[in-house]
């Protein structure tokens, strides 16, 4: 059932700080929803709660109709929930291609017992995953640096690789945490078209981004968050134009 991501009554507090205050939010399959709001509004915390980095105090996270709230991070990923990180979190001792391969949803070489007993099958799966990784790199225009060490890749391209690694999951829901910070020019347009293509194929996409122009270009709708609450939802243009929200954003 392709219903996308549905979050109900999500609550989390760290001591006295409320990062999620009864959040109700759905990201339907095939839609791109932008999360906007000032620093500390709870946008990244929302991603951490949805992806399973931290457990909520209350509430429910549903992925395509299935309750994933009780599942660990890795199990959520294996059900098609992928995310990127504000600070990238790529694997510095791996090449670009190897970084992508680790993101395969069912990584063939993960279990030592399988490696010993089904090495032929694993080799075949690996070959397929390599082709797939090269294809994903092709889509973001970076196939030429597949075998480069990740530490030698410029920051803007590393951001794209972070997204590419999440794409290896064939996600049903993709959470992008500030994908545009530090990205310019061609990479900007590439990212836009890749994300649009994903949504067109039925993926639910949620983007946290401070670059309002990017959100406006890309997202079907925007959600304004403040102090762990969803304050408003609607098309990005009207959210940006709302003087009440602008005041909260700039704190004037």
């Amino acid at each position: 059932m392709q219903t996308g991501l549905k979050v109900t009554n999500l609550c989390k507090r760290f001591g006295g700080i409320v990062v999620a205050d009864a959040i109700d939010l759905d990201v339907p399959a095939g839609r791109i929803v932008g999360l906007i709001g000032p620093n500390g509004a709870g946008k990244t915390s929302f991603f951490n709660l949805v992806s399973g980095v931290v457990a909520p105090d209350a509430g429910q996270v549903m992925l395509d109709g299935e309750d994933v709230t009780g599942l660990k991070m890795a199990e959520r990923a294996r059900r098609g929930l992928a995310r990127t990180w504000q600070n990238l979190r790529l694997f510095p001792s791996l090449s670009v291609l190897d970084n992508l391969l680790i993101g395969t949803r069912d990584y063939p070489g993960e279990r030592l017992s399988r490696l010993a007993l089904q090495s032929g099958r694993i080799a075949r799966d690996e070959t397929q995953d390599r082709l797939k990784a090269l294809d994903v790199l092709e889509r973001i225009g970076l196939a030429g640096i597949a075998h480069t060490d990740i530490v030698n890749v410029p920051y803007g391209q590393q951001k794209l690789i972070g997204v590419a690694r999440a794409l290896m999951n064939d996600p049903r829901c993709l959470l992008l945490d500030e994908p545009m910070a530090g990205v310019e020019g061609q990479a900007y347009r590439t990212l836009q078209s890749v994300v649009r293509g994903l949504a067109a194929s039925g993926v639910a996409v949620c983007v946290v981004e401070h670059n309002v122009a990017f959100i406006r270009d890309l997202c079907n709708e925007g959600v304004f968050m403040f102090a762990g609450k969803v304050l408003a939802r609607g098309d990005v243009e009207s959210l940006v134009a709302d003087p009440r929200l602008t005041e909260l954003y700039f704190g004037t």
Partner: protein
Amino acid sequence: MEYFYTVVILMALYVILAASFNFVIGYGGLVSIAHPVFYAIGAYASALLARDMGVPVILAILAGGLIALLASVALALSSLRVSGDYLLIGSIGFQLGTLEVIKNLHWTGGAGGLSNIPSFLTQTLGPQAYVAFAVAVAMCTVLLLRWIAHGPYGRAMSAMRDDELAFAALGRNAMVMKITIFALGSGLAGLAGGIYAHYFRFIAPGQFDLLQSSALLTMVVVGGLRSTWGPIVGAIALEALPQAITFINLPPSVLGPLQGILFTSLVLIFMFVRPQGLIAASARWRGRQEEAR
């Protein structure tokens, strides 16, 4: 000649120990010092099974490895659940505690040690056969670990070491992987223990103490963390070194502490001067295909 065989067997055993220890702390990034205890558990289990229960020696050695593996899973399950740092603390306690238990049990021979361990191969085919056996196991260990480290599993180990959170968020099970690495490394140490026991036919708790931990750490650090050949070079060099010192005719009361000082200073010197060890591993993970290219 007997002396030569003994030295080669010890070198082979230290190659197994250093290579498996490198697998745990180098490739796996799991900081533990309890490696000699799994060596001890393998030695004691194999010796007792063969001596008191009449199990054929070769099966007893394998069982010793398996028992060491199971013991390591118990330690890993309890300490890795909390966080990686607890493994170091847990391993220190496990090291000291297990040796204390062995010292105080009746059926392990206590502090005086366990003697009359059945021999294997030496009396039927001669000591050369045992040398060949130990060297063969050492070679298989090195090749097995190299095969794992340079394949898809090795790629995943590198990623896990780099960033466990990102690794898990991609759907990988870091906990299972850590326990597997720890269990395999410790099981191989247990295997080495059995091979030791049935050649020397006498084991005592003092042979597996903290000095052994520091010796193994020295071998791995001096040889080169995370490289295939580093721990082998380290093991052979550091096993040969103390043998060489014994030729300088120092009194035994000086020799023992001298070895400890030697190992410790080597670790310090290498940490400062050449942290990558004698054989530097590539900073980047390289798989089989890429090496062939």
